């Protein structure tokens, strides 16, 4: 099962994230196996696969929340091991699956956390927090002082995104950021996120198991199975030429669902006519 797929699209500035034969073992279990990937400047690469395929582990190896057992991870041309882990993480935004807002801090303090760790002057931090809250459509005057538990799930996730973007990172890592949201909120946030990301020119690695989300957001999609890279390419390439049965079935899911909906409508329609 050799990885199939072409070069990063629009790689004008070269690769911002580069994984070279990265392996992660937990005892005898190999979670990620000899994985090599590149993400170009400004690109959003989706890591797609079922539970336990190694996509979250791969994501966490980029900012060293998980250390690789073997192989190399490069960010902006430098080996991540050249950095102190916390300094590396301050340069990379991260959106957590469970949001992970600090419950004892206000919304503003949550957003400001990384800029403050970087020692930004107070004025700059305050301006940045307000700017980001506006960007995520939360009125600063109304939300700045609120606690996370006073927010809805969608609002919390938006604060989580603002926190990831706060320190003006080049790279953002997202771990199923919209997984726990209702479909309408998710749809709105996805479109909004894509727009903001493009505006800021942010490079992103995006983990999901949702095929529709992958197709909607990904410039390219990397399909993982049992810790190995199965195929990487643009959504169109994957749809047109799936490299394996696993990919083919994955790519077919949105269409299967669409057909199921069509059938529902047809049977309902015929019942109505008769």
């Amino acid at each position, binding site marked *: 099962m050799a990885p199939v797929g072409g070069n990063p699209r629009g790689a004008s500035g070269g690769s911002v994230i580069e994984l070279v034969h990265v392996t992660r073992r937990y005892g005898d279990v190999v979670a990620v196996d000899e994985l090599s990937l590149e993400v170009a400047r400004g690109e959003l690469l989706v890591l797609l696969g079922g539970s336990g395929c190694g996509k979250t582990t791969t994501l966490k190896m980029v900012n060293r*929340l998980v250390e690789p057992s073997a192989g190399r991870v490069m960010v902006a041309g430098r080996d991540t091991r050249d950095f102190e882990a916390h300094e*590396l993480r301050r340069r990379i935004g991260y959106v*957590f699956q469970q949001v*992970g807002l600090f*419950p004892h801090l206000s919304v503003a303090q949550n957003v400001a956390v*990384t800029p403050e*760790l970087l020692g930004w002057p107070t004025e700059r931090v305050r301006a940045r927090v307000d700017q980001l809250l506006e960007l995520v459509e939360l009125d600063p005057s109304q939300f700045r002082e609120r606690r996370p538990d006073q927010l809805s799930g969608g609002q919390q996730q938006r604060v989580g995104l603002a*926190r990831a973007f706060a320190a003006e990172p080049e790279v953002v890592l997202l771990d199923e950021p919209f997984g726990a949201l209702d479909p309408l909120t998710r749809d709105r946030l996805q479109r909004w996120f894509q727009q903001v990301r493009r505006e800021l020119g942010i490079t992103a690695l995006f983990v999901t198991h949702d095929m529709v989300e992958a197709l909607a957001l990904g410039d390219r999609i990397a399909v993982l199975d049992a810790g190995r890279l199965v195929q990487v390419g643009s959504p169109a390439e994957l749809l047109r030429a799936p490299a394996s049965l696993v990919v083919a079935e994955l790519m077919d899911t949105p269409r299967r669902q669409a057909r199921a909906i069509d059938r529902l409508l047809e049977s309902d329609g015929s019942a109505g006519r008769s």
Partner: protein
Amino acid sequence: MREQLELLPAYLTGHLQLTLVALLVGAAVSVPLGIWITRRKSLEPAVLGAASLIQTIPSLALLAIMVPTLAALGVLTERAFGFELRGIGFAPAIVALTLYSVLPILRNTVTGIKGVDPALVEAARGVGMTARQQLLRVELPLAMPVIVAGLRTSAVWVVGTATLSTPVGAESLGNFIFSGLQTRNQSAVLMGCLAAGSLALLLDGLILAVESGIRRRRRGLAALALALLAALYAYTAASFVAERRGSARVVAIGSKAFTEQYILSRMLAERIAAGTGLATRAVESLGSTVVFDALAGGDVDLYVDYSGTIWATIMKRDQLPEDRARVLEEVTGHLREEYGISVVGSLGFENTYALGMRASQARELGIRSISDLARHAAQLEIGGDYEFFQRGEWKALQRAYGLEFGAERSMDPALMYEAVASGGVDVISAFSTDGRIAGYEIVLLEDDLAVIPPYDAIVMASPQLPSELPQVVRALQPLLGAIDAPAMQRMNLAVDSGQSSPSEVAREFLARLDAARAEGGAGADPPAPDGYTPPQ
């Protein structure tokens, strides 16, 4: 009641010193220790186990153990660093209370940190915090309510346990309770309990207010509670400084925990105040070996003990002494040679161990002496104070008379007399000057084989007192030989029956003594030193 209120500031200050220092040190040790064992998980069972083990030691025993422990350590520190750790008073109490305060804070620190959502710890790492920042900015703030709950539990425990530091010589609200129980002064007991209870509630409330004020961002509340706590600490610190700076020599007068001792210690204090103008300090309700060690170590300047007690428990002699004068002579010599303690003189009465029983029952069974008692002992129960059955006198009695009782019960000396009067036990180890002997119609049995050593009440002075303050020794001379057994019994009864306080009884006695001197005294009789010379 007024007398209790006058004592309240001193006892409350002592209690605050013990509690606040123990809590501060306890928290300063437990929180870092707790954090450390969440980082080194393999140590957790050992450290928490050790803390739990300390907690299982009864608090009174833990306090008592500290006295010899610190005394032994004191020898080492003096050799190594040139200062001596005091074996009695504040030091043993504070060590024991600090150990006692550890477990709740430690356990809650561990529980609190372990209870922080792992997703939040990962988020803290993910946003770029160092290990230290994760701890300070995320883990500790989130664990704080649990840690503070531990601190509150500790505060309540320590306030309660500190009342037990009285017998090791640390002044606390426990002084009300110990002396109140012994002298049947219910208002003193009540005062001690109420004050300790209020203090516990106050500390608990203040700590809660600080924590919840911070958590719920009510700055005013937090600041107010913090200011009150800070004020308590400032007051405590100031009281320490005042004590240390109180350079004027204060004569410390010790007493054991029973009525007669309270009366005599106040009597000594009154005499010294009248004769020298020096200030005195009562160190009351001490354990019987604690007070002796304190005198030998100079923590206490004077107290009254009994020749037979020194004979049996300090000199560990068990053979029968020939006569009263001989015992006193040997005791005096032994104390001077072994400890440098000087015997100022005898007060004039004996307070001996004696076996007592209900007068009616003694008549029925035809018992007048201990030899008579030995024939009926198997059908009878005996009650003794806590130390009686371990003492040499008891073993000597058993050997000499062949005493074998149906049952032996240890009980509080304050309750023994009532126990025998009400038929709870048949025989007790009475103290011969106890006022309740007459009150409860108890007869003392004759020691016909002369087994029990004489128990002359003697005033003893610390090694340094006679040379440092000879006027104190002179001031006590009028008391020597001035108190006979019936007088002591009357005074004890007056206190035990609730009529008068120990101070009142002591003052009345001294007033009568002065009056008698003035009347019958050959006019110009100065409080003569009776040929007394301080030992060099």
